């Protein structure tokens, strides 16, 4: 029997959830806000999906939706990483 694409995707999904749980179980409270913000920026990975649906040139409802998806995903990614860095920069100053 050949394992179907869906089953492989589900394997990836379940295992990645476990990785997520394991990686983030121990976090000092200081980092909760930056971590939340950083994780939020990573959820902007949906930009990959947005690019996939925005590749066509002609203007249709589909490309318009795709272009908007790129726009909002970029806000999430760029804003998210920058704002996280701004917070973390302050912690860095402590070690002067």
């Amino acid at each position, binding site marked *: 029997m050949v394992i179907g694409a869906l089953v492989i995707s589900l394997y990836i*999904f379940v295992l990645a959830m476990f990785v997520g749980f394991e990686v983030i179980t121990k976090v000092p409270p200081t980092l909760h806000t930056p971590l*939340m*913000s950083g994780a939020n920026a990573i959820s902007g990975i*949906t930009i990959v999906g947005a*690019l996939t649906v925005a590749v066509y040139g002609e203007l*249709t*409802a589909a490309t318009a939706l795709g272009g908007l*998806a790129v*726009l909002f995903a970029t806000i999430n990614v760029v804003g998210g990483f920058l704002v996280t860095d701004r917070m973390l920069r302050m912690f860095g100053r402590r070690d002067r």
Partner: protein
Amino acid sequence: MTANEFLGQGAYYIYLISAVLFIFGLKQLSRVRTARRGNNLAAFAMLLAVIGTLLELKFAKGLDIDFRWILAGAIVGGVIGIVAALRVAMTSMPEMVALFNGSGGLASALVAAAVVWDQLILKDGLAPASAASNLGDGGITEAVSIVLSVLIGAVTLTGSVVAFLKLQGRLKKGAPIILPGRHVISLLLIVGAAASGIYFGFVGETADAYATGTIVLALVASILGVLLVIPIGGADMPVVVSLLNSYSGLAACAAGFVINNPLLIIAGSMVGAAGLILTNIMCVAMNRSLLNVLVGGFGVAEGASADHGEYEGVTSCDAEEAAMVLESARSVIVVPGYGLAVAQAQHVVRELADLLEARGTKVQYAIHPVAGRMPGHMNVLLAEANVPYDQLVEMDAINPEFRDTDVAIVLGANDVVNPAANNDPKSPIAGMPILDVEHARTVFVIKRSLSPGYAGIKNELFERDNTMMIFGDAKKVLNGLVNEFKELS
């Protein structure tokens, strides 16, 4: 293997590298020393992901990429993101994260919608059949994933916007909004979402039906998102933002199933798990179950002690008297809360602490896990003012110390120091772990008025004999204290 095949295959290895870097990035983000590097690493992984996607589309799928829409979206979105991130004040971080989160959810919903229009509605010569069968092999999975992506994405969007408004205090000042029969309405909306999803994927057989199903689903999900967050009080917003963060990860993950992209699934589900963990940590800190938070209405609950009753026997003093008490104190614990953030008082509190320390007074900060509007909110603010890290003490470590402390200064905190949590089993916050400031010899509460905190209940701490209220904006009061102190010395 031709060069094109090589680049096409390379895209999938780039995804793999990107996924590994995301894992390392998240891991490093959870340690103070490496956090900044972790963030940079994750940002680099995102760049790799984008490069990998473009390679995959061009060389593995052989598409002729037209960059106009991509560039337009990326430039406009990039500028908005940069400006928003650089201009937001540190005190407004939680709101900003909520908004970014909402835009991520919206993007995931839009991706799914774009696939619907591209693969179904705008496609010529489709047989009159259900969306699932018209999507070809794996059509059932794809239809279900589309529905989930639109549903979760839209709930994330409107939920985040409501959370943003609540954190800004624009929506009834963050108080819970309870609609009559809200559980019934929510249930009906969930049924409605399921019905429109099923209609889109498995019942409707024309382009119009696909469109109707998708649009109705998006609308119902949007209303559901609003309804899920409005009954939750402002004090619980950290939990909500964290949970919505988890949702936006799951929405991205669903989008990954739609376009069959492993990296989206990996990164999306990792963020989903991260959000859940953080949400759980926060619920534990408040001694409440997640269900209890989500059902909402906290602080307007019935119950004998949920009165906003009048205060009796409250003593207040001015900065001069307070400075005299502080002058003879050997140990001081500062308890910061949201009021500190609102008043932007983190720098002046540091100044006062420096003056006290110069006189040999021991100064510490007691950090309640849910003080402020996000976990670690106070840590971020105090770090901005260069408060040494080792002076910030967590709740369990500092609680035994209050008994031997001369002065506790409560700065714009309310519910997290309310003794009712320990003494009054009928109180809505009964059982919530609090900072035991009442045991300090003298307690100064710096607060604008006697108005209740987010839980909407009276705080008997303010009536205690050893409590003195100093009314006013935290920053102004502290400035007054600093000036008095300079005159004394």
